[in-house]
Each structure stands twice: as C-alpha cells, then as structure tokens.
C-alpha cells in the first residue's frame, strides 16, 4: 500500500464551505492491489491483484462521477499503480475531467520512459516511498535494490519536469537515519517530503516490532521540527501526514496559519478512498470490514456518499464520540481524535489516539507514558486489523520537552 498524500497544495486545502457541504475534495484510489514489493508494513497486504478489479470503462465512469461531486485531486496508488496496464489512460481521463492527478509509488521498475509518458498524460506529481537509508529501506520493502531504484526514479522525475516527492514511513528504527535521508533525497531532486507514522494494520501487525511506541513522539517531533527548518533552507518542504500531530508546540511550523490548522480527520467528509474492486470508503486505509461503504458498480457514488452509514462517522462527530485521553483534551472539539485509521486500527475503535505529541507532553507532566502491546494478530486479508492494548507506565528516563 502506498501512502496517500503528496503535499497539501492550495487545491487540496479545505474551506469552511468544503467542510459543511462535505465536498470530497481529495480521492485516493487503489487502482490495483498487484504490487512488485513485499513491504513489512503494508496495511493492504498488497501483492496479487484483487479478484474483480474495475475495468477501464468502469474506472472512467468513476472519474466522471467524482468530477461531478466536486473532487479536485485524485491520487492513484496500489499495490503498485503502474502495474495496471491502463494506468496512463486513467491519468489522462482524470486530467480531462479537470482534476489534478498524482501518483504514489515504490518506484521499483518504474522506467524513465514510463515517467515521461506519465508527465505527458498530465500527471502532476509523483510521490516515491523511501523508508530509510539503503539497508533499512530494502529490508522494509522486501526487495534488494528497491532503494536505488527509488532514488533513480526521483532523478528521472527531475529530468521529466515532474514534481517529485518522497513519502517516508516512520518506523521504530528510522529516526537516527532521517537527517542523512533528507540530504540524500534533496540531492536526488525531491521538493516535498511527507512523513507518516507506520500504522498497526496488515503486515505491520505481523511485524509489530517496527511500530513506534507512542511515547517516542517526544523524541521524534523535535527531530522533525529541526528537519523542517533545515529543509526550508534547502528548498525541501517537510509535511506531516494525517497521523502526525496534533497541536503540539511544532504544529505552527508545518500546519501554521498559512497552511491551515489540523481540523480533524477528513475521512468520509472531504476524502474518499476507493479499492480496486470498486469498494468505496472514507479513506483508502481504513479497515474494509468496518468502513466499506458499498460497491460503485451497483450504486452511484453520489448516492453512497450522501447516504451510506459507513461514510457518515466524521461529518457530525463531536466530543461525545471520543474516549480515553482524547475525550477530555483541550483540542477535542477540533481534533476529534486525529487520524481515524491510526486509532481504529490500533485499538479497534476510533476516537482515542495515543500517537499525539500534545498528549505525550501532557502525560509526561504527570510522569506517565503510554506503550502499546499486541494482544491479537490480524487476519491474512487486505486492510485487516489486530488488537493492541494501551498501557500506562511511569517515566523512568528523561523526556524531551520543548
């Protein structure tokens, strides 16, 4: 599974009207589940294509419907999106319907000719996943040589005039490498760098040692702040994914007033996720079992979007839907527990998210930190979740305070 967000440019920025009218501004579309990598953290357990993926004609009808609903950007992902033979046709159709098109990729076997063809078809940006320096990246991605291929893709993007971005999964071992990684991707031509915490879903549940502990945000966030400031001087914009938050002392850097503060998870309110077989969700990463909202083959997207209960959960969500620490948080009404995917996948219920810098610092004031422990494995299905227990324990070592 590729990461869904490339950057947060103006067309994707949400207005008050977008929020109230539930405009599906941003769509992330898994156009195939086939993939040529074997990532240890893959939430969708990608590899083989789904049994009944949408045909080209069905995809073009989906594009038409999304344009009518007011979608401004579609990001195509996989699996590995370019494994699908008609991917350039879909890119062109998205642009012909007046929407921006971006793509997220692992980059493995994405040739220069393909990149140039994508630029010609109207692709606006390519996000390449790089999860550490070469040994770590290749281990996490499960294919030797995938790191060097990803860097080569960044350089080919530059040659083709395509905006290149890098997505990095924040796992338990990557922190010491982030500074060197930033230098590498700048040299390779990246303009944006989005970081996202690895979420307890699919393969990441099987390999739970790669998951960051919530209390490690106390170390991570000052590091990201330093990198953000250094990146600005070097023409690289470090951006937070939806699960990097929330309202901590560094939010002003990456979600400052000029970019918009964190206004709650957009899943099902201003974002749509589509699986390759036509299953509609509020976010591409949410557990299909709990958040699948029907099949676009059988029901118009506008009808599903307006009426399906599995898409409604964020639209009128208030503090009463939160629990645990989040329920009593100062920011509860705005933040609404942050990333639905992160909390729901981890604890089996949305609305209480331990991966929050504000929360980590508040707990630290009381001498407490939180740790996750796996208590239930995830089934061998795409977007399957296990179960983790959330434990509080006394802090016995120092914690980084701003």
């Amino acid at each position: 599974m590729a990461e869904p967000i490339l950057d947060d440019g103006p067309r994707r920025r949400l207005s008050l009207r977008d929020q109230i009218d539930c405009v599906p501004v941003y769509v992330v579309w898994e156009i195939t589940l086939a993939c040529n990598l074997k990532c240890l953290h893959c939430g969708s357990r990608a590899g083989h294509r789904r049994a009944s993926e949408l045909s080209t004609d069905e995809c073009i009808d989906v594009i038409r419907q999304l344009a009518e609903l007011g979608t401004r950007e579609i990001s195509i992902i996989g699996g590995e999106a370019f494994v699908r033979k008609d991917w350039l046709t879909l890119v062109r159709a998205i642009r012909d319907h007046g929407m921006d098109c971006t793509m997220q990729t692992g980059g493995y076997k994405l040739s220069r000719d393909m990149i140039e063809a994508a630029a010609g078809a109207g692709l606006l940006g390519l996000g390449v996943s790089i999860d550490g320096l070469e040994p770590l990246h290749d281990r996490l991605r499960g294919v030797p040589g995938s790191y060097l291929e990803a860097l080569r893709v960044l350089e080919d993007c530059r040659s083709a005039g395509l905006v290149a971005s890098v997505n990095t999964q924040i796992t338990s071992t990557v922190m010491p490498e982030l500074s060197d990684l930033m230098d590498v991707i700048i040299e390779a031509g990246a303009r944006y760098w989005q970081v996202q915490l690895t979420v307890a879903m699919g393969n990441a549940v099987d390999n739970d040692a790669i998951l960051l502990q919530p209390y490690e945000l106390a170390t991570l966030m000052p590091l990201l702040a330093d990198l953000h400031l250094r990146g600005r001087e070097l023409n690289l914009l470090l951006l937070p994914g939806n699960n990097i938050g929330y309202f901590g002392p560094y939010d002003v850097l990456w979600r400052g007033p000029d970019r918009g503060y964190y206004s709650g998870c957009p899943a099902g309110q201003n974002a749509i996720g589509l699986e390759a077989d036509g299953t509609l969700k509020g976010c591409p990463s949410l557990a299909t079992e709990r958040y699948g909202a029907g099949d676009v083959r059988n029901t118009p997207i506008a009808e599903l979007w307006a009426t399906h209960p599995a898409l409604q959960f964020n639209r009128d969500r208030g503090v009463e839907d939160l629990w645990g620490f989040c329920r009593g948080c100062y920011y509860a009404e705005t933040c609404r527990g942050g990333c639905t995917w992160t909390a729901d996948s981890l604890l089996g219920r949305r609305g209480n998210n331990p991966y929050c810098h504000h929360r980590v610092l508040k707990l630290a004031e009381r001498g407490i930190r939180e740790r996750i422990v796996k208590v239930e494995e995830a089934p061998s299905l795409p977007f399957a979740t296990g179960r983790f227990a959330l434990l509080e324990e006394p802090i016995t070592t120092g914690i980084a305070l701003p």
Partner: protein
Amino acid sequence: MSERPASPPRGRAAPVMVLCRQCLHYVFEGTQVCPHCGGDARAAGARYRDDGHLAIETIQFIDRAAERQRG
C-alpha cells in the same frame, strides 16, 4: 444502477483556532488567557510578529469574513 437522487450531505466545520500570540500554540478564537503559557493570547509577542504570523492571520480573518458573507 439506481437513479435515486441523493440529498446533499452536511458536515460539521471545525471551530476556528488561532495562535496564542505569545507561545504560538493554537487556542480557540476569542481566548484571552492562553491555557498553555498563561499569557495574553491576543497581545502580539515578538515571535508572533517576527515570524510573519500577524500578517498571515489578518489575511485569514478577511477570508473568513468574506466566506461568511457569501453564506
């Protein structure tokens, strides 16, 4: 495929947050005393002015007012 017209969905907008002009943490619009630093959230401090936040938030205030007027 069904042709039943769907009624337009409605969502809740997030409350307006602004920066505390002393410590640059977010606070709810209208907050006088910052719950984070205890300072006057509305009085522009040095970091707030020097980092350009005053100009940015002024533009946002105008944008929000225009949006409200449009309904």
